[in-house]
């Protein structure tokens, strides 16, 4: 472990080079500037042709829609990711698997809620994120309780270890599904955090802050979303991931928080979150809490590329690419709905590079 950096390239050098090359294809601010000037999706297609996306959008016969753009971008990311994954050696392969687990959790919860609403599985499956696809996915709807879900369906999947705290006999309803999601996510992020810590070295230096931020973001979001529900403080604190910077004092305070002001008071104790909860300056564009978190996340992920010989670049690349897809979809949405004024509300990645 001491000389991991020395031998890093033996196993993972190729993939790191690959991912850094892919990162060079992330759209620059000039690209965004040009995209924002487009009047139709066709224009956007034309412009994206000159970027690394190439013929991605032009190869289809159908007319362009925003959802088509979205799925194409997603498929592109999945292609790149599966290329990385299939060439990866342990422990990088495990690391990459960890990235997919969060998508799997989302997929499971979406399928459960879909099944609760009596939707057909065939209709739900295409809406699942392909990065989190697994064999048993379609059978998720069979389960009625979390225990059943675990013992019958998910026990074979990599999600099984995260079920330790989530097993309960209560019937799955929408609320329960959401709680299940958060419990699974808490277990997942804690496990990922300790995995990165065990790897140590630069990977831990890069990944731990990113994951801690992710944990705290979820904590804040859970708290804000829980206003007005019957979740008690104890219930809430059971959902908070305990690997973040807020642990333990911040979590305790947040569990008690009942309105936005109290959350803000907690955030004020932490310099990195104080900014996010700050009131927007007068005159500046209003940004939602979510966008501010995304902005912060992009910043953290960009830092990963400043160092070499670590796994963080893979995680960061996936996250940045996801953000880029969100940006493109946002711009496409604004273009189709002719909302030119809001078009600049995307979150730029690598704003300095051209």
């Amino acid at each position, binding site marked *: 472990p001491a000389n991991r950096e020395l031998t890093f390239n033996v196993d993972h050098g190729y993939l790191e080079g690959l991912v850094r090359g892919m990162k060079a294809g992330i759209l620059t601010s000039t690209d965004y500037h*040009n995209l924002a*000037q*487009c009047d139709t999706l*066709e*224009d956007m297609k*034309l*412009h994206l042709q*000159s970027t690394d996306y190439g013929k991605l959008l*032009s*190869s289809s*016969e159908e007319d362009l829609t925003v959802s088509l753009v979205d799925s194409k971008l997603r498929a592109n990311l999945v292609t790149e990711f599966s290329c990385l994954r299939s060439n990866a050696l342990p422990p990088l392969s495990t690391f990459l698997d960890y990235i997919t687990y969060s998508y799997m959790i989302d997929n499971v919860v979406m399928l459960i809620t879909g099944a609760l609403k009596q939707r057909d*599985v*065939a209709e739900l499956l295409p809406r699942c994120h392909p990065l989190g696809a697994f*064999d*048993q*996915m*379609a*059978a998720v*709807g*069979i389960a009625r309780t979390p225990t059943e879900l675990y*013992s*019958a*369906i998910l*026990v*074979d999947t990599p999600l099984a270890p995260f079920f330790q705290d989530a097993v309960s006999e209560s019937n799955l309803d929408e609320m329960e599904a959401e709680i299940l999601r958060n419990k699974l996510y808490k277990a997942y992020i804690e496990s990922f955090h300790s995995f990165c810590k065990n790897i140590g070295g630069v990977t831990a230096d890069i990944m731990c802050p990113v994951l801690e931020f992710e944990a705290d973001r979820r904590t804040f979001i859970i708290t804000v979303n829980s206003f007005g529900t019957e979740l008690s403080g104890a219930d809430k604190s059971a959902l908070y991931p305990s690997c973040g910077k807020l642990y333990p004092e911040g979590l305790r305070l947040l569990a008690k928080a009942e309105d936005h002001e109290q959350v803000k008071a907690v955030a004020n104790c932490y310099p990195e979150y104080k900014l996010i909860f700050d009131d927007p300056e007068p005159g500046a564009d209003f940004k939602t809490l979510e966008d501010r978190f995304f902005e912060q996340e992009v910043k953290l992920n960009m830092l990963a590329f400043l160092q070499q010989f670590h796994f963080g670049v893979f995680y960061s690349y996936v996250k940045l690419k996801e953000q880029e897809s969100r940006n493109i979809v946002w711009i496409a949405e604004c273009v189709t709905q002719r909302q030119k004024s809001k078009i600049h509300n995307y979150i730029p990645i690598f704003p300095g590079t051209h």
Partner: protein
Amino acid sequence: MSSLLRGEEMCLAQLFLQSGSAYDCISELGELGLVEFRDLNPSVTAFQRKHVNEIKKCEEMERILGYLLREVKKADISLPERDVNPVAPLPKHVMAIMEQLQRLEVELGEVTRNKEKLQRNLLELTEYTHMLRITRKFVQRTAEREPLQVQYEEFPFLEKETMMDYSSMQRLGAKLGFISGLIQRVKIEAFERMLWRVCKGYTILSYAEVEEYLENPDTGEPTKCVVFLISYWGDQIGQKVKKICDCYHCHVYPYPSSNEERNDVVEGLRTRIQDLHTVLNRTEDYLRQVLIKASESVYTWVIQVKKMKAIYYILNLCSFDVTNKCLIAEVWCPVNDIPTLRRALEEGSRKSGATVPSFVNRIPTSDTPPTLIKTNKFTSGFQNIVDAYGVGSYREVNPAPFTIITFPFLFAVMFGDLGHGVIMAVFAAWMVLCENNRKLKNTRNEIWNTFFEGRYIILMMGLFSIYTGLIYNDCFSKSLNIFGSGWSVKAMGWTKEQWENNRFLTLDPNVTGVFKGPYPLGIDPIWNLASNRLTFLNSYKMKMSVILGIIHMSFGVILSTYNYLHFRKKYNLYLVFLPELLFLLCLFGYLVFMILYKWLAFSAKDSRHAPSILIHFINMFLMQGDGLQPLYPGQTGLQIFLVVIAVLSVPVLLLGKPVYLYWLHNGSHRLGLYRGYERVRRNSEEELYLMRAHDMEEGSSHSDLSSSGENPTEEFDFADELLHQAIHTIEYCLGCVSNTASYLRLWALSLAHAQLSEVLWAMVMRVGLRMDSTLGVLFLVPVFGLFAVLTVSILLVMEGLSAFLHALRLHWVEFQNKFYGGTGVKFCPFAFSLLPSSFEHDGLL
């Protein structure tokens, strides 16, 4: 010739294209490939340009064509001959092509979809028959074991229910259901596990593998499948089982309840499969016909669309004039081609039937034009060698015409071997003779293409190697005795005793009759026997390398005068060229003189007193050597004179130009400026900036010519100029020494080549020749094979490449840095023939 020496004279021209005939005019220009268009709307992004819709349409057509080509390729239909070169279609005909393409696409798509549907159907039916066949075995198996089962009938829920005893279950009143189907083999284990977990054992799963490979309808790959049969109790569990089947993408088929039904179904399936086969065959035939019809014209379409897209791309570069009636394009064009350009525009206007003609107008510019050097198939290889170093600045001396001779010659000096040269020349001659063979020309093999492109270079290299091989008298390391040696051993009068007792005997040329005069061509073959052959050849080749090197470099320095004269910088002639040449000739030219003098002045008789050139040359710098016998009277005085000249030329080179320019700039500010102004009026505008550049300062190269044109009152920076000149001086003076030494690679490589071929002969061929039995003849065959293979692979290919690289270096560094700037921009004409097709790139064509 002047074009090859300097490149074409270029001018900037404005084309006024009537909007009606612009398309045809540009199409005409694209066929000719005369001009390079400049972008007049650089600030407009790609999708905001005027003809973006037409380009989109072209892309749509390209997409359909790509689809067509892929289908044609899949169906293994060869495309017809590709010699057709259709002109770009008229805009009004484009719609027809577009419609044709779209119709074809729809038709193809429908047929393919039908075919796929039929194939899927067929697969399903085949799967169903497999399933029925295999599940029958499950049931038969149970029937055989029936007697064993009877005694356990009372305990139907126990584990032994794995057998298919459904009759007993029915008797118990439980509702028994069956689900049967196929699943991919890799998934069966997970499937079984989940089935067990979810249904808690209330199901029985039996399965068997299908022997054949079935095609996976999604990927088209053959996969192994497993037929399974699940029997379950109760509806609730049935629901779950169905969901699990869905989840594992099982292909579920109804399970017949009785044997008779099963037979009926099997029978029905058989006939349906047969029917499907016929229909499928017909569909495939039809598909093939459609594709064959499409393949006939697909190549024409590809070319047409490519041309059309290129034309619209060019139209996007043009700007509109105020009246919006005509397009304005700016082009770089060779001055000599302007009449052709005019004719092309007339032709274009005539074709489109425009009433107002399009016309050309030369406009003055201060921009540096791109460099165009017209080449043919022979000169292009050599021009490529020069361009690989750097494209020449506009109108500067092009080293390529000289490279045609010097490059193969320097190569051959290193590669000198008659035999190897013949092989190389024959190989190159074969390529030259077959150069029109399409198979050789259109191959995708990059290594082959490299050789093929350089076939004329290789031919010249081979021919020159034959020549130097004759001079070195080396043919596969052996000498040829064509004219009879000039030495006679008999005249030495050695006795038998002397022959036997001495391993080495010395031929003395001073004994009468031993040396009858020099061999007419090259080295005397008797040296092949001499033990001091290597020493003799080394001395000869070393001196030859130095002589060739000095000549080559002096030639480079002399070529720089052409640049100075052309760019009207006469002061450079006295302040740069003269000191440079004096420095080179006074020191190293004198060395060459001494070598030649020694060769001529000393014969065999007084060779014992021949002085060492090295000592003399060193003494020349130390200005001593009184103890030595002079080579010729007055040597010391001449040498001191030469050294003084050489040393004096350094400060002239260092300070002359900067000081002169400084004086020119400050002292004669108003005097004699634009001396050639009358000539400017006569000549083209292009000369004007040269005139100005003359009076302006200039850097070490011509890089700031363009800026000087834009800003004629640019400040003169003495320090900057001095620094440039200091760097140049240091580089040149040190370069003279190191470059001369660098030419010694001629000797080293030629030595290496000769020695390597000799080693090959001694280690391989001689072993085979030594066996003096009949067996030896047979043994000689593989030995010669080995010799031939090693000769070609090591001596020809590897040594040839190494000699090539060294010759390249001698040209790029030692020769070209004496005069060649190489900072130009290559002229890229708009020509359809130069456009790559995206389909070629994808390997579809």
